[in-house]
């Protein structure tokens, strides 16, 4: 009796399927635990809160409610696969995946392409997925790592009057697919601009960086570019402060430039720079709506204490782009209950204009751009933001600038061609 009841519960738990509702399903593969939780929690909160706002304020997207089932991956690829498989069939089928982990993204690219579900890896993932002719189901707009590397170098060029030959730039990176992404681009840029590139890998999770910083202390590179994530960021910024490395010459990628990364180093982090592809702070009208409809209504995801932080804004931005693509898809197809295939078409036709941003209460929050069939990567615009330790704020100190596409485009073409050849993909023709 007892055993049979136990096995019944077991079977029920394994089979547990959520009720089928006609909702628009946007699964959130979040990580609120593990070494990357500090970066993962605000993103997941922002992502969920924006959909809650759209549901509460507008009654959904085009009148259809959005549902965001969350699945904890802990940044682990095996759990990511489990999450993908368990959420893809929810409701009428998942519309979009944003895995927020380079490892899981690589894992899922072939799977989503086979299953016909679009994936949006905003500012991360496989950079060459910008080539929409090969990666039909994968989108990386508005920017990617290679663009980030190029924008950082452009910024350094700008600071040095256009000449950085003979300078020494070090890349301090997470020793994984994520951290290795910009190396190829930086090598090309080093050739073009004549700077020397020092590579300093840090093994995950990244608490142990003493030897790398010893090397930086010895060689004193003119600039340090930093591709870190999670707990590794705080350690690096603390170490930089410890050896008194000039913070204004220490530039992180956008994943290394959020509040949890700099606050632990206190005043030492003052002047640290990071790339950004959207605005910082909570001075936009949309945050009033979020407070009114989501937080005050007690519907905020998580603890509700991340609003306006960089990670939160990134989640919000990702959700906003997803909602806008859904609206585009609804217009294109004339259907309210869109399918994953319609969603893909909507993403490919997405256009973010200044009017749209203003109407959303996000005027000037991010750059305007247009996605096309051939270019899934967007324009790759990036800006530099700087941390003010006294005011505890990030502020954007440059315009959004374009990356050096003369260097990037051949790399994208080469890498995506290699992927197409490896996997027997015939590139689509785009006109």
């Amino acid at each position, binding site marked *: 009796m007892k055993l049979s009841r136990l096995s019944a519960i077991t079977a029920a738990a394994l089979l547990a399927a959520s009720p089928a509702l006609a909702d628009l399903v946007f699964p959130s593969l979040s990580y609120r635990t593990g070494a990357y939780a500090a970066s993962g929690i605000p993103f997941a909160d922002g992502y969920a809160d924006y959909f809650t706002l759209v549901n509460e304020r507008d009654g959904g997207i085009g009148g259809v409610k959005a549902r965001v089932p969350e699945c*904890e991956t802990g940044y682990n690829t095996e759990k990511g696969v489990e999450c993908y*498989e368990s959420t893809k069939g929810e409701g009428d089928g998942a519309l979009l995946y944003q895995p927020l982990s380079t490892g899981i993204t690589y894992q899922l690219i072939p799977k989503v392409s086979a299953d016909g579900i679009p994936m949006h890896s905003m500012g991360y993932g496989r950079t060459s997925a910008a080539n929409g002719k090969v990666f039909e189901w994968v989108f990386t707009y508005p920017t990617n790592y290679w663009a980030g590397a190029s924008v950082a170098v452009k910024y350094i060029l700008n600071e040095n009057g256009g000449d950085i030959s003979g300078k020494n730039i070090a890349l301090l990176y997470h020793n994984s697919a994520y951290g290795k992404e910009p190396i190829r681009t930086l090598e090309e840029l080093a050739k073009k601009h004549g700077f020397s590139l020092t590579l300093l890998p840090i093994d*995950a999770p990244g608490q142990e960086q003493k030897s790398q910083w010893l090397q930086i202390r010895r060689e004193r590179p003119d600039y340090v570019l930093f591709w870190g994530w999670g707990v590794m960021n705080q350690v690096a910024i603390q170490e930089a402060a410890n050896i008194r490395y000039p913070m204004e010459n220490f530039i992180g990628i956008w994943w290394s430039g959020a509040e949890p990364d700099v606050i632990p180093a206190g005043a030492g982090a003052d002047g640290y720079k990071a790339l950004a592809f959207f605005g910082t702070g909570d001075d936009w009208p949309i945050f009033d709506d979020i407070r009114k409809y989501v937080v005050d209504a007690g519907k905020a995801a998580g603890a509700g204490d991340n609003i306006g932080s960089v990670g939160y804004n990134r989640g919000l931005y990702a959700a906003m782009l997803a909602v806008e693509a859904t609206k585009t898809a609804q217009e294109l197809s004339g259907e309210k209950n869109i399918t994953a295939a319609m969603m893909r078409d909507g993403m490919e036709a997405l256009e973010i204009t200044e009017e749209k941003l203003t109407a959303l209460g996000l005027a000037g929050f991010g750059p305007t751009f247009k996605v096309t069939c051939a270019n899934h990567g967007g324009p790759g615009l990036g800006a530099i933001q700087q941390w003010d330790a006294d005011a505890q704020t990030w502020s954007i100190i440059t315009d959004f600038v374009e990356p050096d596409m003369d260097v990037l485009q051949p790399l994208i073409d080469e890498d995506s061609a290699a992927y197409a050849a490896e996997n027997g993909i015939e590139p689509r023709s785009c006109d």
Partner: protein
Amino acid sequence: MLYREAGDFKTSYAADGQTFPIAFDRWGYYVAIAVAFLVIPFIIDDYWEKSVLVPVLIYAMAALGLNILTGYCGQLSLGTGGFMAVGAYASYKLMTAFPELNIFFVILLSGGVTAGVGLLFGLPSLRIKGFYLAVATLAAQFFLVWLFNKVPWFYNYSATGQINAPTRTFFGIEVTGPSAAPWATYLFCLLFVFIFAWAARNLTRGRLGRQWMAIRDMDIAAEIIGVNPLMAKLSAFAISSFYIGVAGALFFTVYLGAAEVGEAFGIDKSFLVLFMIIIGGLGSILGSFIGAAFMVLLPVLLKNLFVGGLDWPTDVAAHLQLVISGGLIILFLIVEPHGLAQLWRLLKEKLRLWPFPH
């Protein structure tokens, strides 16, 4: 009652020495195999394949390998993750260098490569024992992961160090790549695991297995009665690594399809497989399967229960799941230090006597 021995007569040595001496047990085994091969493939979907069955089978394979080394031969190893990485990278290099080579042989050859590497790292076992050997194999773990991250030749000079498994077929049926059908990948893994488990069972009760167990129980005594410790230990390392290499190859090609060495084959993988054999039962073939199923399915089960069933926040569920898994591991080790397989063995003993225990 259930396990009746009355009327079950053995008339030959072969019959007396068989794996399942009780008729009921034997038939249960046949039925289980028949269900695994003939029923399950027709009813599984993507979720059951990718989240439940294939990982259990592959981890069972790895656990079998480690059980041969640790459970049967008594050589403590923490290098499982590294050896799985060898299997995965060997299969990647073979798949990309010889596209026409059948995936079945790719996986066997990957096992062979891993056996060679395992043999190499088994050499210190001749001089050092126990915890000291564990540290030596730990070095193997870190060295191998470092190597695959450092040398671009292993990942074909790709920009990111990620390796991706191309699509390959077995008898014209896709078994790797994103479009492989669930039944095909499941059956492919099951085929390997079935053959290897059968081989392991017969190895461990044969001459070689007895030598391993003699070394495990008392190496000096074993040497005195004529066991060659060099041969016994190195064969255990080679065969164990062969199994683990095959598991790593299947893990990469069939299950994940893409991998990154630090993330997929880190030290936590070594510990996971070690926990599997400790919980399942050291020195038991069945234990390898039970342990793998326990460690793979419990988190999935708890996740579905907490998040899917009770609608709790995912982070609470994830933390609670760690607590519960850890607690259960401790509980099992206190209640039954010989693992779940021993519990099953005791249950069978009891059922054979039931309802008249003495």
